[in-house]
């Protein structure tokens, strides 16, 4: 029999998180600090709107790009929060989570062999999506001493004649790093001068602590070369609804819409109706969740530092990224031993790129009681293994 599979797909290595998941799920009564989604449930008024749409029999396909009302609300929201101007009819597309938008954007923009600059540690999907789209990932290893931000020099060093896209993953999963207006301004000049495009994954935009998120698309000259990815999963605790969106130049969005229409048809209607409510009346929910995350974030940073682990001040998403190099273990050893000895699940930094070695991703999408319990165990573990 012939090989039924495509070798490019077979060659993609499975997600490092998946591997760990299999170990963890064997372990009953483990405390997990390993999830990448909010602990809050979707606010009831948003869920209720989804239920109401079902009651009214709104169970049909929507237009391919998404319900017009939703697209209008998305554009109003982006203007209100991040000072971005997009046309709801021509420059906005509702997708199945941010993930679809990332995949589709890469597929419509890349030619075989084009290079994509990919800062790591970062979300697990970018690299395989680049490869599947025929691109060549060029990894930039972000450093703890730069607080895991992308510097101008790092960007310049990575650019070649073949560079087409920069993926900009801030606020960052797994490090919690954010980039300020000044830091973005630094790399904007390079991007424009070298004529490259940006896919800016801003799914955690609402979850910043301190300064408000700044979108790179809000800089002069950047809107026409940036696709902004965002969605409802993190801000409104709607991960299971699978709803995101892409906004960008009409030429690009038009092609993504074509792919989306053939592959997906449209995002789920129920989720779209719920999302309209989220954008119209969800600001207080976001604020409440953000305040709760911020308190937990401070608590974790304080506790890790008290234990003697260095931990840079993450100001975004819901992760801290402590360094465990002083214990002389690899990330994976630490995570596995911690799970076996203390029954706490954390994700090794290496799941997000080789340069995550020596770090752990700790999620604070848990109640403070839960975090306290887990931290006591981690402290005991660290004490036992310190030389």
């Amino acid at each position, binding site marked *: 029999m012939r090989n039924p599979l495509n070798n490019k797909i077979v060659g993609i290595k499975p997600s490092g998180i998946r591997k760990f998941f299999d170990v963890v799920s064997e372990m009953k009564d*483990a405390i*997990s600090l*390993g*999830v990448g989604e909010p602990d809050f449930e979707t606010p009831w008024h948003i869920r209720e709107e989804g239920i109401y749409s079902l009651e009214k029999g709104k169970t049909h396909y929507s237009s391919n790009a998404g319900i017009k009302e939703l697209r209008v609300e998305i554009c109003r929201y982006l203007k209100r929060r991040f000072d971005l101007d997009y046309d709801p009819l021509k420059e906005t597309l509702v997708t199945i989570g941010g993930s679809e938008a990332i995949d589709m954007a890469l597929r419509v923009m890349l030619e075989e062999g084009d290079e994509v600059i990919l800062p790591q540690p970062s979300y697990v999907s970018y690299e395989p999506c680049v490869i599947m789209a025929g691109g060549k990932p060029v990894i930039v290893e972000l450093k703890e001493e730069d607080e895991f931000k992308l510097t101008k020099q790092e960007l310049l060093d990575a650019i070649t004649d073949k560079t087409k896209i920069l993926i900009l993953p801030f606020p960052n999963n797994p490090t919690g790093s954010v980039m300020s207006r000044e830091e973005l301004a630094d790399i904007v000049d390079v991007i424009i001068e070298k004529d490259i495009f940006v896919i800016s994954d801003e799914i955690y935009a609402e979850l910043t602590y301190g300064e408000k998120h700044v979108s790179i698309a809000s800089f002069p000259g950047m809107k026409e070369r940036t696709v902004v990815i965002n969605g409802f999963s993190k801000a409104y605790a709607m991960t299971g609804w699978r709803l995101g969106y892409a906004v960008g130049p009409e030429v690009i969005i038009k092609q993504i819409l074509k792919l989306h229409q053939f592959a997906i048809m449209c995002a789920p209607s129920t989720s779209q109706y719920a999302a309209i409510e989220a954008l119209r009346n969800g600001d207080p929910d976001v604020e409440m969740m953000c305040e709760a995350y*911020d308190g937990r974030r*401070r*608590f974790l940073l304080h506790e890790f530092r008290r234990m003697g682990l260095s931990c840079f001040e993450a100001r975004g998403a819901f992760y801290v990224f402590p360094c465990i190099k002083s214990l002389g273990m690899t990330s994976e050893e630490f995570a596995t031993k911690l799970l076996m000895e203390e029954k706490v699940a954390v994700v090794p930094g290496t799941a997000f790129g080789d340069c995550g070695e020596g770090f752990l991703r700790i999620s604070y999408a848990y109640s*403070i009681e839960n975090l306290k319990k887990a931290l006591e165990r981690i402290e005991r573990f660290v004490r036992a293994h310190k030389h």
Partner: protein
Amino acid sequence: MKEKILRIIEKNSKLTSEELAIMLDCSREEVEAAIAEMEIDKIICGYPTLIDWDKLSGEKLTALIEVKVTPQRGQGFDRIAERIFKFDEVETVYLMSGGFDLTVIIRGKSMREVAGFVSEKLAPMEAILSTATHFVLKKYKENGIVMQNDEQDERMIVSP
């Protein structure tokens, strides 16, 4: 800052002032001063524990009584409300708008005890015109907390 403290301890009053200080990025002294001030101002009125008495074997019964009263000259409803809330059995008293004047929530050991309270103590008061007693059958949610909550963390234990 006071409001931030309140939003946290409203849900969990067991956190220490040190933990609160870490979470709110201020000193322990500041937290303690703010809490002390709020205690004096009666913004924080106490630190009771929310108990689901139904889970214990000894039965407790909660009743909500709608009370109509004649307000008294010079004191309105306050005087009669005070006479009512001084009883230990009375857990809550609200002055209401609408069809009746006071909501009185009482807790007793048995229906007989509650009935005795209403007929012997409450109804005979001069200012009280009428009462209507409703017994609570099941508590679903109290003080923002769902009582019979057996929901678990539905999330996958690790995810990207």
